[in-house]
């Protein structure tokens, strides 16, 4: 479904991605692991078109998407849920969700989807008319994921969904992702909580200093000596 081949990205003169290659097949949950500054978030941003690669190819559903603007990539079916719960704090929850469907523009379908999303996130229904900024951290993360789903994506790119969440909220969030995934969504997930991420993923990639250096099934990565030492903490 998604393939990156030797993708290179630079900020100014500094190359931060120096050869990232990965594949995500339809229906898979793939996670991207690595130390801080390894380039995971940069990879996510490159896929969703927020950054342009200086070399390499990104293909999605057999079409090249690198260099296309972010809104076009969203329309093609990739929704990016950025790290740090980026929501519109001064819009209501409902408006936030409607913004998620902005690219689709058809009111009838939007209303239907809104209903479906609110069904899945009962907390958001309770708070539908509250301002996004007044939600707690966990609720904001829910809202960010729900908003991403509102664009009706084929691939969901999640950047650190557990960031800054309490243990119970982390559990809830991961259960939710498993559920979304069970319904057929393809997911690429960047996550620091490597242990939890690998437990729910099918496959994973490990990034080091801007390169993908290791790939394997989640099981294999959990057992990998290097991964254990470097990312699982012992």
């Amino acid at each position: 479904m998604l393939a990156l081949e030797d993708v290179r990205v630079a900020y100014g003169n500094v190359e931060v991605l120096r050869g990232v290659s990965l594949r995500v097949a339809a229906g898979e949950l793939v996670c991207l692991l690595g130390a801080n500054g390894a380039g995971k978030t940069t990879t996510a941003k490159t896929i969703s078109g927020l950054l342009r690669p200086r070399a390499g190819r990104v293909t999605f559903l057999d079409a090249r998407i690198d260099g296309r603007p972010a809104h076009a990539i969203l329309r093609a079916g990739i929704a990016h849920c950025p790290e740090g719960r980026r929501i519109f704090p001064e819009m209501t929850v409902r408006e936030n969700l409607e913004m998620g469907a902005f690219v689709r523009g058809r009111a009838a379908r939007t209303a239907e989807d809104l209903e479906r999303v609110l069904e899945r996130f009962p907390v958001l229904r309770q708070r539908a008319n509250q301002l996004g900024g007044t939600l707690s951290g966990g609720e904001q993360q829910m809202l960010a994921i729900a908003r991403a789903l509102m664009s009706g994506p084929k691939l969901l790119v999640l950047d650190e969904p557990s960031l800054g969440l309490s243990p119970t909220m982390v559990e809830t969030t991961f259960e939710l992702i498993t559920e979304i995934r069970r319904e057929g969504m393809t997911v690429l997930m960047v996550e620091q909580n490597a242990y939890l991420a690998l437990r729910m993923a099918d496959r994973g990639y490990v990034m080091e200093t801007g390169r993908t250096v290791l790939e394997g099934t989640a099981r294999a990565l959990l057992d990998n000596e290097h991964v254990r030492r470097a990312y699982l903490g012992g």
Partner: protein
Amino acid sequence: MRLPARALATLAVLAVVPFVLDDYYVHLLIMSGIFFLPSAGMNVLLAGGQLTLGHTAFFGIGAYTSGLLALQWGLSPLYGMVVAAALAALVGYLLGTITLRLRGAYFVLVTIGFAEVIRLVATNWIELTQGPLGLPGVPPFDLGRAAFTLTSKRQYYFVMLVLGALTYALCARLLRSRFGRALTAVRQNENLAESVGVSAYRTTLVAMVVACALAGVGGSFYGHYTQFLSPELFAFYNTVTMVVMVVGGGQATVAGPALGAIVFTFLPEFLRVAAFYRMLIYGVILLLAIMFMPRGIVDALQRLRRRVPASVAEPPAGGEPLVVADGRPAGGDTPLVVEHVTVQFGGLTALSDVTFSLARREILALIGPNGAGKTTAFHVITGFLRPTTGRVLGGARIDLTSLPPHEVCRQGLVRMFQKASVFPECSAINNVTIAGHRLGRAGFWALVFNTRATRREEAALAARAASLLQFTGLTGRAHEVASNLSYGEQRLLGLAIALAPGPAVLLLDEPAAGLNPAETQRVMALIQQIRAQGVSVLLVEHDMKLVMGISDRIVVLNHGQKIAEGRPAEIQRDPDVIRAYLGAGQADARA
């Protein structure tokens, strides 16, 4: 005072110019110089994030002050200029004390309004100013005595050159000093600046006084040069000219206003050949300049040259990096007491009668669900929020409840923020140097004259910043702009920033967010080292391995109320805590 070679070369060229070019160009250079002075001042204030669109008021006040003094009492324009600068500075100070609590657009509007009021006064106070007719016959500039009256353009040029060079040197010293760093801090992240001990209000007020004094000098010289005063001096387009010079040249840079003043004085003159279309072409050039060099000429030139980053100062050799600044983690045995604190926002109770205290060298964790009031507690302790009732006591039971954040920092309590915990446009090393502000002692004039003590202090601050960067493992990223760092690296930089003022009590808001388990273990080790140096730590964190691993005690908040307090083992068994926060799944993460 040592002058770098480039400055000497520039001065030498400028000294030769009037012997090469004819009077018309000399005149243009004098006008560039006159406008450089207020622009340079405006730039200092803009470095602190405040835009004044009434700056011409101070230019005009300067012109009228020394002009009227010379006309009515025959005071030498040289002394008149000093009075003009003082009066403009005084008016700026008064306006600043009232308005600098305002930010952004509000401050801009007030300054526009102020300039308009002054213009109306100058137009209508006929007895003093002859209103719109203006005051002709202002005496020419002299150097203190009639015998030294300036008679030629060339003489004016050289006096202007001296004034310009002094202004340039003053602004360079200020912007590159600890004061300049404080301005940058306020501009880029005011809350963080306050939390490391920079008073946003005082810093911008000093900048305002400098800005207005320079405008006064420029205006005074202008009045004696043109020998005519009119309320036109207060016209809005004069301010616009200054803004174009500052922004076009390069705001918050040292050379920006100087380059801008020359370029944007000469450009409209050269366009006179286009006669009728002159202003149209000028407008188009301005538009293109802003589109292609949004950060001004200086920035564009720097992009052309390959920039070699300056080397990072060597961290002091040997031993552990020094976290505690002056070896005196103040605060006695209980450096922090929170007593019956309640915070209400409208109908919502964010904290309800919360009491806890922190012992010296203790690591106390504050945990609870998202929205339980942990960050609110941090706001209250560090002075960003006044509690509805209750109080916060620092070491030696000093009441911190009503102190502003920068004062709380001076009492030794420094926080790390959950979001926006860095100065985004500065390099990592500069982030930490800025945050060492509180440790500097040099006053305004010591910075201007860059005394030996000041230089020694600067070197110490730089070394300390390098050592803290090494401590947090970011030395390799020292010259990276903070906003380019990954989320986790920004958390670590936030930690280095919070350590820079040398806290007795360190408040950490999710230091391990965005770090993987291995990196989290390193942060745990760092926190333990910090404690070992005598610092008390109040910690908010969701990583239970970290919390349970290093905390001496834990306070649990839920819906703004303290629901438990105790040792980690007790907290892990507490049924209320498990229900509200830990969840059943925490059982296997306990190891």
